[in-house]
């Protein structure tokens, strides 16, 4: 960590958070929230959490801010006028927030010192990961090896949570039959019939690079920051860029709804399937070392490395499909005929 940058970036973050809450226009709040996410990414980088920073970079710049914009476009930008009866509830909320802060400040006295290498969190489990990663799995990026191997079970259910979120969005918004759609509002369309050649040209040049870069991130996650989550989000963001600069239809032409949901399933299935394959080969669930029996010319250590790669690919496919699905549902009000 670099404490000079730490102090400056944290101060900027607090200003951004205050502004996001105070500003009385939802579009502006979403824009300032974008700046907030940029600063967050800087904070993680400066504290040495490169993988977290990469995730924040791809999520904040590519997906979450755009989802906010989409929601604001489809509903309304206005924040209602202040009413007199609200003052009491605001006072209660302020008291509750201050009480929570007070409890946390009291608890802060017992926290281990910041940037102390001998905190309890860094003494018991993580030294094993740090010293043994290269020996056990031949993967220099500890975060990848802990994510996909040592704590692979955890990550599998995280992927399942994201998959469930995608299903929930479909269940809430999507109307499959045309006759059910009479009460739906007309989606707000920005790209349809808008002949901006410059933006279209640049987007068309950039999208292949973004997708190639995403594949690189997935494949190179063992040796540098990156991995399945980041690559999947970047792949999804490339489709979002296509949808914004061209048309809603062009994304549906490349990735129809059927394929999208199918890919989400396939991603989670690849993850669980590799786990079951290990089970069939006589090891524990998600213990990739037994994969050396199936994979040609690999010893047990390299088999763990290759097993991780398989899992990252599954995660990337699932995350990409879910991100696209959430975006398409929100921008088209679940109608899938036109949208942002």
């Amino acid at each position, binding site marked *: 960590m670099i404490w000079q940058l730490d102090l400056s970036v944290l101060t900027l973050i607090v200003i951004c958070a205050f502004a996001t809450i105070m500003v009385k226009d939802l579009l502006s709040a979403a824009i300032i929230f974008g700046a907030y996410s940029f600063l967050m990414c800087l904070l993680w980088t400066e504290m040495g959490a490169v993988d977290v920073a990469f995730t924040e970079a791809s999520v904040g710049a590519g997906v979450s801010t755009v989802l906010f914009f989409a929601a604001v476009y489809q509903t309304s930008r206005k924040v209602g006028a202040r009413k007199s009866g609200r003052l009491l509830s605001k006072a209660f909320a302020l008291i509750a927030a201050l009480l929570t802060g007070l409890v946390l400040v009291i608890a802060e006295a017992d926290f281990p010192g910041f940037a102390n290498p001998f905190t309890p969190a860094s003494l018991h489990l993580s030294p094993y990961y740090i010293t043994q990663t290269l020996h056990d799995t031949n993967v220099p990026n500890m975060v990848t090896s802990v994510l996909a191997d040592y704590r692979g079970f955890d990550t599998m259910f995280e992927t399942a949570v994201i998959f469930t979120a995608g299903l929930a969005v479909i269940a809430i918004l999507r109307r499959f039959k045309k006759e059910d759609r009479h009460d739906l509002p007309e989606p707000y369309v920005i790209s349809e019939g808008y002949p*901006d050649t*410059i*933006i279209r040209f*640049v987007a068309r*040049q*950039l999208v292949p*690079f973004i997708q190639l870069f995403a594949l690189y991130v997935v494949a190179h996650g063992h040796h540098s920051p990156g991995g399945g989550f980041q690559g999947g989000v970047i792949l999804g963001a490339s489709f979002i860029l296509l949808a914004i600069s061209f048309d809603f239809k062009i994304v549906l032409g490349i990735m129809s709804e059927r394929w999208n949901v199918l890919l989400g399933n396939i991603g989670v299935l690849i993850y669980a399937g590799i786990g079951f394959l290990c089970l069939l080969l006589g090891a524990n669930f998600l213990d990739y070392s037994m994969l050396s029996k199936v994979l040609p010319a690999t010893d047990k250590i390299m088999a763990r490395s290759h097993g991780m790669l398989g899992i990252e690919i599954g995660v990337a496919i699932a995350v990409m499909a879910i991100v696209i699905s959430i975006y398409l549902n929100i921008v088209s009000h679940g109608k899938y005929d036109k949208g942002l």
Partner: protein
Amino acid sequence: MTLVVILLTLTGLVFFFATTIGILRFPDFYSRMHAAGKGDTLSSLIILLALVLYNFHDINLANLLVAIKILLIVVFIFMASPTATHAIIDAGYEASIKPWMKKPEEES
């Protein structure tokens, strides 16, 4: 070599500073956008060039790869940043923001 790096970085910083002054002080949206679009792209080019020089201290494959990646960042900033500027200015034009005049128009 170090001197060149320091000089380039400081030049970039000066341009960044000019950009920020422009963003803060210009009177209307179009002139602010002019400062933001031009200054940002140029100063990012200069600072990133300085960082390429600094990291390219001895010639081997890894350093070459890093240099190429940083230059790729420059290329993408040169593609994306002017387009973003164009998009924002277009939005401002569509939203019918009036350009600033030296003599304020008569009150109507």
